[in-house]
């Protein structure tokens, strides 16, 4: 008797067959040990895959749909600001850092951000990777990591996502053409004209914004908290707080 094709056996297993075809295969399986064994093998492979995938599963990030809408609004503001305009990402590490350690999640995270943004910008350089090369014998410390980004269309957004409650954030205007963030223990995402700082540790977090920017803002967990207003910065939670530098505590 002709055997059942493995594709049909899997379709039988997955309930994809018509009632008529299913009945015919069922009858065949009762009489054919080889096909029954093949079905068992497919069933085993399917179970193995499901178990393997369970082993590597991680929970989805807890997001609100409003964060997607914010991202969409911001992207549409930059529409036309093509990824391949002049935007240069420079990634530096201040001193000894956990990011210098091979296998460090911070290192991998920074490397990925670097690769993805530089890839998107069509840029490639080995210079920025030297800072990521392993430093044998260096002890891991949660030291300051610095990241800079150029404006896109004269604008910069810095997003602080779930920083430590007792972090103090200093935002200042500087005579530079790039925005810089310095923080301890944080992970970074970047794109043209924006930096996201995730899980900055307690302590000082410093943000330098170019004085010549047309617009800039700092967001805390999706909410604007500092905006550049002409030649000054304005802390939105304390309208009287304006100047070339503002400071706020995350917990306030």
């Amino acid at each position, binding site marked *: 008797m002709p055997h059942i094709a493995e594709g049909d056996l*899997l379709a039988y297993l997955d309930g994809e067959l018509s009632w008529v075809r299913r009945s015919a295969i069922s009858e065949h399986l009762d009489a054919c040990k080889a096909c029954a064994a093949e079905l068992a093998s497919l069933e085993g492979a399917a179970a*193995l895959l499901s178990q393997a*995938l369970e082993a590597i599963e991680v929970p*989805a990030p807890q997001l609100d749909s409003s964060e997607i*809408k914010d991202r969409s609004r911001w992207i549409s503001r930059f529409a036309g600001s093509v990824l391949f305009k002049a935007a240069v990402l420079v990634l530096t590490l201040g001193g000894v850092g956990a990011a210098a350690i091979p296998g460090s999640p911070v290192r991998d995270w920074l490397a990925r951000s670097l690769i993805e943004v530089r890839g998107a910008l069509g840029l*490639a350089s080995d210079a920025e990777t030297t800072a990521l090369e392993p430093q044998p014998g260096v002890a891991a410390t949660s030291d300051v990591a610095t990241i800079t980004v150029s404006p896109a269309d004269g604008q910069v957004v810095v997003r602080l996502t779930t920083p430590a409650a007792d972090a103090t954030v200093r935002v200042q205007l500087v005579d530079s053409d790039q925005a810089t963030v310095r923080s301890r223990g944080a992970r970074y995402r970047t794109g043209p004209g924006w930096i996201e700082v995730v899980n900055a540790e307690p302590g000082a977090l410093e943000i330098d914004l170019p004085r010549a920017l047309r617009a800039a803002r700092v967001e805390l967990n999706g909410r604007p908290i500092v905006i550049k207003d002409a030649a000054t910065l304005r802390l939105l939670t304390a309208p009287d707080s304006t100047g070339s530098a503002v400071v706020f505590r995350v917990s306030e």
Partner: protein
Amino acid sequence: MDFDAAFAKHHPSVFRYLHRLTGDADVAADIAQESFVRLLDHPVPEDKVRAWLFTVATNLVRDRARTRERRLRLLKAGDPALGQAPRPDEELEREESIQRVRRSLEQLGPRDRQLLMLREEGFRYGEIAELIGVAPGSVGQLLARALKRFARVYNDAERTANDERSDGDASHR
């Protein structure tokens, strides 16, 4: 289309699918978000949302993979054992097991991975055919082959790991 409801309903499965496809939680999170951003800009009928999201997500993975391949050399690192503090055996074994799964999946090739992950997400063969761009009648065969290939690669890797572990134990006696 109720975007908020669609997001709440589909984001976990889109993320899970992307994480399984890419092996990278950060990339999966980013692409998942990007997929929903695109949904905001291009609303689709309620009954098409899931398939639409998975199509967009799959295409974004493909686009990103092309860029990533060109830059992969920048991620070359030295000996990963250098400078790391020793970890408990249990943790190491779990990590090795996770890596074994990831490497086995990587050996499948992108289309086979997509096929298997879509099946795991409960898509019917007809939907899978449309998402992947293959003839509906061929889905069963493609899936069966991919499943068997995964099982073979994974079991070989596990056998090798067990052999290495026994050799290590023997040399310590």
